[in-house]
């Protein structure tokens, strides 16, 4: 009796176990090439989860992951929380040690490397007061990312991130001067065979970006969700930053010339690069003109097929409008009632003629041309869309500006203008040679104006304009110390860069002078055609402002670090992509 009952019980257990196994099997069924597998496999595929793209396999890491006996998730969560706690308690040593442990547990989790490297470089470094300590942690974050690239060989994300850290954190932080110097002198970072002149952070950054590009080019990894317009622009942009940075540091030799030459070449290469755009077309930045020509030609062909057909069609369409629609459309938009808005919309819809509609109409009219029309119209639509994408991508990369900029920087005038402006700034700040500085500035400004004239593509409100405006502001300080001011018409008339200044004075430091100039311009009939600026009532602020020696930031907003206690948020998926 008893025995039988226990038998029944065991059978019940077995049955229950079997019943429970069924959903597990259903859920966990792995996917194969032919079948998509169980629910979990499907979810995994849907969210692109998994550790399929391994880099270096580290036996230590493998062992540790096995040693957690399937509790890796818990261990990882605990370590993350411990890491956060260490960070909160400013125990950086243990924080970094925790990261090392985590790296062993989830070495193929790209976001982990990016997030924590960002923490080290951007958030931990600013917690320290001494600039050398800050640099130490910037470096640690960079090292950490490098460690990540070892595990995730050929991850364009991590490689590009390295380029970003080394370029933008070192070269654009408030401490950029010190950071760049420390980076150059960092014997422990650079490989021994790297020559001193190659130890510039922007050049190193360029090589990492380049590696990311090479990975994608060679087809080893896809660039994922990165935008090709910026991704491929990164190496030449670093090269340009290099040119800019060394000029700012007073290098006006063959080296700086070569830097911009190379930048120009690289940008040209970038322009010629064919890449896949969002709709799957292969496009290139430089292909704009050709594409425009192609579209124009196709349009002409299409029009030639049945001239005047568009106007004809429009007429036919107009005839289909109802009386109400017509009335509604004639009314002023603001006065239309809700109903009328609807009517107007449907009316406009009728009058909206696209290539396809024209094509249909032509076919209808001349069925014999059907094949030809169909082909031509679809081709036209495709090429139009391609043209749009090229334009769009050029805007994203700010292609035209940088192209012009490279040309601009290679002109003799721009080079000399840079040199003179630098010399003027040094003469003022280092030697307090006011008159000498003033003279150098003025010579420089003439050259700037000349160079700008030669490169009309360079807009006044571009970064170049902002750089020039910085010089003008220093010049204004020089003048102030000489008891002079740009308000003074005598000086103002000789000053050739008013438009540039006007477009680059958001803080309105020099508002008084600009307004005075603007007033005179409007008074005089011989004024040049204006870019259309209306002058507000100027603040009567003076030109002198020298409380802090703030490092300038040519590209406003690219640097997250603005104050001590504003922890820069680590990157979410897109935030750090330029």
């Amino acid at each position, binding site marked *: 009796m008893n025995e039988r009952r226990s038998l029944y019980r065991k059978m019940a257990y077995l049955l229950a176990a079997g019943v429970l196994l069924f959903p597990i099997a259903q859920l966990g069924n792995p996917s194969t090439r032919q079948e998509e597998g169980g629910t979990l496999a499907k979810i995994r595929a849907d969210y692109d989860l998994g550790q399929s793209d391994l880099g270096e396999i580290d036996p230590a890491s493998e062992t540790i992951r096995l040693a957690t006996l399937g509790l890796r998730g818990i261990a990882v969560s605990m370590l993350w929380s411990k890491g956060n706690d260490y960070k*909160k308690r400013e125990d950086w040593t243990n924080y970094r*040690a925790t990261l090392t442990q985590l790296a062993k547990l989830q070495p193929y989790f790209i976001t982990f490397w990016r997030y924590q490297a960002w923490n080290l470089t951007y958030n931990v470094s600013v917690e*320290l*007061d*001494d600039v050398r300590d800050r640099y130490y942690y910037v470096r640690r974050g960079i090292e950490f990312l490098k460690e990540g690239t070892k595990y995730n060989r050929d991850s364009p994300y991590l490689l590009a991130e390295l380029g970003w850290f080394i370029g933008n954190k070192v070269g654009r932080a*408030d401490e950029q001067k*010190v950071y760049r110097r420390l980076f150059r002198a960092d014997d422990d970072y650079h490989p021994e065979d790297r020559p001193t002149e190659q130890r510039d952070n922007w050049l190193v950054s360029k090589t990492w970006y380049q590696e990311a590009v090479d990975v994608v080019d060679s087809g080893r990894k896809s660039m994922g969700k990165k935008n090709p317009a910026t991704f491929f622009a990164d190496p030449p942009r670093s090269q340009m930053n290099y040119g800019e940075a060394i000029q700012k540091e007073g290098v006006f030799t063959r080296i700086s010339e070569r830097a911009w030459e190379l930048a120009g070449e690289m940008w040209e290469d970038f322009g010629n690069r064919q890449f896949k755009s969002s709709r799957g077309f292969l496009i290139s930045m430089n292909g704009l003109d050709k594409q425009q020509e192609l579209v124009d030609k196709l349009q002409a062909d299409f029009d030639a097929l049945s001239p005047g057909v568009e106007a004809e069609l429009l007429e036919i369409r107009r005839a289909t409008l109802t009386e109400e629609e017509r009335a509604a459309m004639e009314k002023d938009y603001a006065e239309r009632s809700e109903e009328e808005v609807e009517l107007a919309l449907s009316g406009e819809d009728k009058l909206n003629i696209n290539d396809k509609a024209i094509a249909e109409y032509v076919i209808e009219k001349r069925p014999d041309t059907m094949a030809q029309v169909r082909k031509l119209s679809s081709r036209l639509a495709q090429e139009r869309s391609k043209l749009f994408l090229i334009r769009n991508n050029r805007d994203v990369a700010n292609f035209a500006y940088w192209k012009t900029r490279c040309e601009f920087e290679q002109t003799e005038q721009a080079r000399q203008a840079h040199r003179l402006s630098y010399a003027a700034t040094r003469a003022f700040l280092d030697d307090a040679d006011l008159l000498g500085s003033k003279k150098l500035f003025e010579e420089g400004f003439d050259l700037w104006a000349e160079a700008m004239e030669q490169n009309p593509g360079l807009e006044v409100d571009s970064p170049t304009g902002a750089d020039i405006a910085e010089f003008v502001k220093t010049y204004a300080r020089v003048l102030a110390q000489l008891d002079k001011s740009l308000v003074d018409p005598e000086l103002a008339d000789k000053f050739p860069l008013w438009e540039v200044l006007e477009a680059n004075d958001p803080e309105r430091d020099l508002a008084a002078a600009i307004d005075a100039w603007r007033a005179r311009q409007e008074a005089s009939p011989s004024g040049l055609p204006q870019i259309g600026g209306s002058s507000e009532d100027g603040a009567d602020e003076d030109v002198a402002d020298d409380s*802090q020696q703030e490092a300038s930031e040519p590209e406003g907003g690219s640097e997250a670090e603005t104050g001590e206690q504003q922890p820069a948020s680590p990157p979410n998926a897109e935030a750090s992509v330029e």
Partner: protein
Amino acid sequence: MVLEEEILPYLQWLTGGPEGSIGAIPWFFVIVFALLVLGLLLGFAISAARHGPLGGGDRVYRTLTAGFREMTHLSGRRIWALARLAIKEALRRRVVVALIVFLVILLFASWFLKADHKDPTKLYMSFVLTATTYLMLGIALVLSAFSLPTDFKTKTIYTVVTKPVRSGEIVLGRILGFSLLGTVMLLIMALSSYVFVIRSLSHAHEIDAANLRRIEGPGGEVIGYEGRTTRDLYHRHTIDLGSEKSGTAIVENGHYHTIEGEDGPVVSSSQGLLRARQPLYGKLRYLDRKGVDKERGISVGSEWTYRSFIEGNSQAAAIWTFRGLDASQVIETESGEQLPVGLIVRVFKTHKGIIGKAITGGIQVRNPETGLTSELYPFEALDAQVDEQNIPRKLTSTENEPIDLFDDIVTEKGGRMELIVQCLERGQYFGFAQPDCYIRLPDASPAWNLVKVYSSIWVQMVIVVAIGVSASTLLNGPVAMLFTVSFILLGFFKDFFEGVATGTEYGGGPVESLYRLLTQKNIITDLDPGAGATFIQSVDSVLKLFMLAIAQVLPDFSSFSTVGFAAYGFNVPPDRVLQDLTICLAYVAGTAVVGYFLLRTREVAK
């Protein structure tokens, strides 16, 4: 170092000081009394259910009196015999494997540990100590929880309890035996850890003679050399040598090297890796920007509220009052006698200032009785590291008169002195916590300090053994282990547990949390009002009472740890060691009594 809780003097801790905190002894008796009442009620309830109220009462009374009688009949020889048996049993169960595990951990530690940190000693010490702690607790757990249940299972306990052995002796014998064994294992681990840390971090550098630059005096004569060492163990030192090429390498990563000159400078192996700084702490108070006394400074919005801040270029100040100063604490330096002070300043800036330039602060000392104050002595704040300042004995007062630190500033009675720190730059802030400023007494012996640190691990181990053994008097092995594990876990998270019980943690009590977990509701929003919420919360309020009661007997494992002291290179205060040992004793005594009654009222042969 960071010391989030102040360490009270032992006697004050024991009896409760004037500060209003209840002392350890009164608290112990409160808990003993509560447990006694609880035990009596429970015992009576159970035996009344079996034998009726009268018979039950009689039994409870007899058990209790017999218990007290037997407690006076404890025999050392019997306890020792049982302890030896416990040790033999443990050895037979291959506890030695744990030592091998430990050695394996050390062997593979290099997978996780690199010396490329600012303070590698801290990292290495915390690693070995943490590993030792967890391993020891694990061993203690397994040994203690399974020993008695195994005896019950193999019925060997029959032959033991039919001897004149008191149940208390069985419990105590096991606690003693396992603790002794644990002690030996701990010693072995400590020694191997020590060797591991020293071997991992000890190193020497070389100096390329070509890399040394001469420093020439005004007359062109060589007055010294400067340069840097080779890079070893992820760092290098800058060096500043005398004309005979000897001196010390500047402290880097928490240690230094001495350098001997003669034919090419020779660098010694690393020194000062392990230290036992001996601080004399003072009591900290603040002045706000208007010079008004404040408990705390201002918060700069940091989540961690350990330090609070004083504003620069205002009357805000941090004032430490020291006691027990005397002239024997001065050190002789080139510039006369000085009182050595350690100061940690956390700098908070509201503007960048000049990049690369440190913020200036000022130090003054004041006589708390006469108010005589020394002139402000400026210093540059090193951020977040120990700045070893010295206060010269010969000072000038604010009236510009020469004064003597010990004759004029330090009071005769009690040796009291106030040390005032201010930040001198506008818009910048200094942050302090009480342990951030101290008088540097001569370093204690690092080895002895390590012994003290290990004693705190020992204490934790003994407590786990005691709890495990007494739990296993009633429960079978796995259950006893689970019980002890939950005790340890709750002990490690005592603060949180108490926080949940008292309602200071977000998310409500256990049932509410479960509900939130299942419905994925975040912990901040309130529950939707209604009968369900009321029900959940009323169940929780009962559970919370239980939790609060349990929290009172939980050992606070996280606060036992003195790992921080060793990691930061500070001496463990003797008061702290005494407190830990006392707590340990209390737990052993308490659990032994509980274990006694559990074993006594248990039917051995069931």
